[in-house]
């Protein structure tokens, strides 16, 4: 056996010993509260789980944190606020987690942060857009996703460039839907001559035609979708069936990022062509190398294309891991202090954490956004027409409308 071979064996043995030392250490438990069974969005819950599992594997493979592996402890919140509250309580008191993340429905986040605040446990919001999550001003709560008033500003800017004056929004009857619809209304108030109203629709509903039919007689310039799947798909199909939008007169503008859901094209076909989309991920946007690593792992794991939820989930867990590293401790107060002062680099870029009270409190600032238009049935996101994104100024001239 040559010297090189011997040294390789020694290195391998050393690495194995180091790894076994890591995994002999007591794991650091991190709580993941997601929807794993109906009536909440199991689709979102599954994607968040995929995102955090990928990061957990990456972190543990690299030796863990402070020499300890991380262990994810899951609780099913079913998308119900009361269950979310109970899940947070169980994770903190029974499982002794050092932090909680994964929340992906605003009403559940709003319930869970009350518990996390009571125990001063760090809570990283993964996908709750409602401004109220930030506006509560809880010292231990941090937000990785975009927030409603920021989405509203972006949507209002695009609508302004499109020259839309009469705008109707369909919003789901949740904290997210109603909060987002109101935020868009506030943003549109700054635009002269614009009339705006929103209609709340029941997420459990199956026939939205009565809400759509009045628009046929008096079509607006734009119909905004503030809904998540599956009812979002049903509304889109019924808007198309009634010839309301997308049409030569009316833009259809999704503000919830539904087009990158894995089941989008199975459920929506012609109804999505010419639709404008506000979104948080486009394969064409510039991302850090870490994003490619996570995207690759996700593709291998699921055979699906990644979407924003994967990256947001990955960033939520990475943020907690970085905070533990910087605090050199799992003490909640030390972690919160580290989180407040961190400059965090994740899969979506490098973020500073805002300490300004209000809608951006403890928010990762400048989350990248994109706007694109779908131009064909079954089109992958990468082939859609990107009209705005990081480094791409808004250009509505590229947009097209249906002939009728």
């Amino acid at each position, binding site marked *: 056996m040559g010297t090189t071979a011997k040294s390789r064996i020694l290195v391998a043995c050393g690495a194995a010993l180091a790894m076994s030392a890591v995994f002999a250490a007591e794991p650091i438990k991190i709580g993941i509260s997601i929807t794993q069974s109906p009536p909440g969005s199991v689709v979102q819950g599954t994607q968040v789980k995929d995102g955090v599992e990928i990061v957990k594997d990456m972190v543990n493979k690299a030796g863990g944190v402070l020499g300890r592996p991380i262990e994810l402890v899951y609780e099913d919140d079913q998308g119900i606020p009361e269950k979310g509250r109970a899940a947070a309580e169980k994770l903190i008191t029974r499982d002794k987690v050092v932090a909680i993340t994964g929340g992906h429905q605003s009403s559940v986040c709003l319930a869970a942060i009350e518990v996390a605040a009571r125990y001063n446990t760090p809570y990283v919001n993964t996908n709750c857009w409602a401004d109220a999550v930030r506006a509560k001003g809880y010292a231990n709560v941090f937000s990785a996703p975009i927030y409603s008033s920021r989405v509203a500003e972006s949507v209002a800017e695009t609508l302004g460039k499109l020259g839309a004056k009469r705008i109707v929004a369909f919003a789901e009857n949740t904290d997210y839907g109603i909060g987002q619809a109101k935020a868009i209304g506030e943003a549109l108030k700054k635009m002269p001559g614009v009339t705006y109203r929103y209609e709340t629709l029941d997420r459990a509903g199956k*026939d939205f035609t009565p809400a759509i039919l009045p628009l046929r007689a008096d079509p607006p310039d734009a119909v905004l979708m503030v809904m998540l799947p599956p*009812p979002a798909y*049903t509304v889109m*199909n019924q808007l198309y069936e009634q010839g309301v939008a997308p049409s030569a007169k009316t833009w259809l503008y999704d503000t919830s990022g539904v087009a990158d859901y894995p*089941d989008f094209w*199975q*459920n929506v076909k012609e109804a999505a062509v010419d639709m404008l989309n506000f979104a948080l991920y486009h394969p064409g946007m510039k991302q850090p190398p870490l994003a490619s690593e996570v995207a690759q792992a996700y593709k291998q794991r699921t055979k699906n294309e990644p979407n924003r939820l994967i990256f947001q989930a990955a960033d939520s867990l990475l943020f907690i891991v970085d905070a533990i590293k910087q605090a050199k401790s799992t003490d909640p107060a030390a972690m919160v202090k580290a989180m407040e002062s961190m400059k965090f680099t994740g899969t979506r870029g490098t973020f500073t954490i805002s300490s300004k009270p209000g809608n951006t409190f403890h928010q990762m600032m400048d989350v990248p956004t994109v706007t694109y238009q779908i131009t064909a049935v079954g089109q992958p996101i990468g082939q859609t027409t990107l009209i705005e994104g990081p480094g791409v100024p808004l250009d509505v001239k590229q947009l097209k409308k249906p002939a009728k």
Partner: protein
Amino acid sequence: MPGQRVLNIDLFVNGLIMGSFYALMAIGLTLIFGLLRIVNFAHGEFYMIGAYAYTLAALKLGLSVWLGLPVAFAVGGIVGWLTERTLMRPLYAGYASWGLMKDEYAVVVTFALSLLLINLVDKVIGPYAVRGPGLVDIPRIALGPVMLTGHKLIATIVAFAMIIATALFIRYSLWGRQIRAVAQNRLGASLAGIDATKTSSIIFTLSGALAALSGALLAPIINTTPDVGSFPAIKSYVIVVLGGMGSIPGSIVASLLLGVLESFGAVYISYDYRDAFGLAILILVLLLRPQGLFGEKGREV
């Protein structure tokens, strides 16, 4: 105003279409709840199973959509039959020593069945929404002032045909007459030589099959998910009581009425209260006509 007239025609036709789908669901529940007086919390899941059976038969097995409908009908029937054989029979087959009241047993066992089916489908098929293929591939057609998909038009015709066929079956067939006899008086029917247990089995089978057919017809419209059945099940209970417990013509009229009322109420009152209209009408009917629209007052000794 011509625009207003067009809107009203649209609302009326859309209400009738939705009402026809409600009716298919509600007839099955009328048979179980109205005739057997059994509260079946899993009725919405029969509907969900029908929607999945139709969609998967067409998309995964490659069957024609026209074969998908009888497949869904048969799967729903089998699930209904199995439910009766395994879970419901203790209600009327001499299990009194269990010490469970009939109603409580049915509520608990069907509620558990409902949760089991939702979670089973969620884990086996997955949480993602699936849209069934349409019976015809016409995304949008205009019938005068009314716009709808080709599938919706055909599905409505099929739904009305099934409603009429079921009403005729209950009225004129031997099994139908047996069902009515058991509904009137289970013991009396047994004394007259009717196998009441077998008749209950027929009722569950038919109920499951009709709910599943309703789900199948709506599969290309509703984007099916495992919990899709809870909403129509609630509507069906409203319809059964509104129409008069056990009255099939009553449940048909109540379904169409509810569909049209919801449609108009959503536009002229408020969309937010759309699902409350049925409950408001139900309270009104129960106050003024407690036996329901088509129910008959009766006395028991």
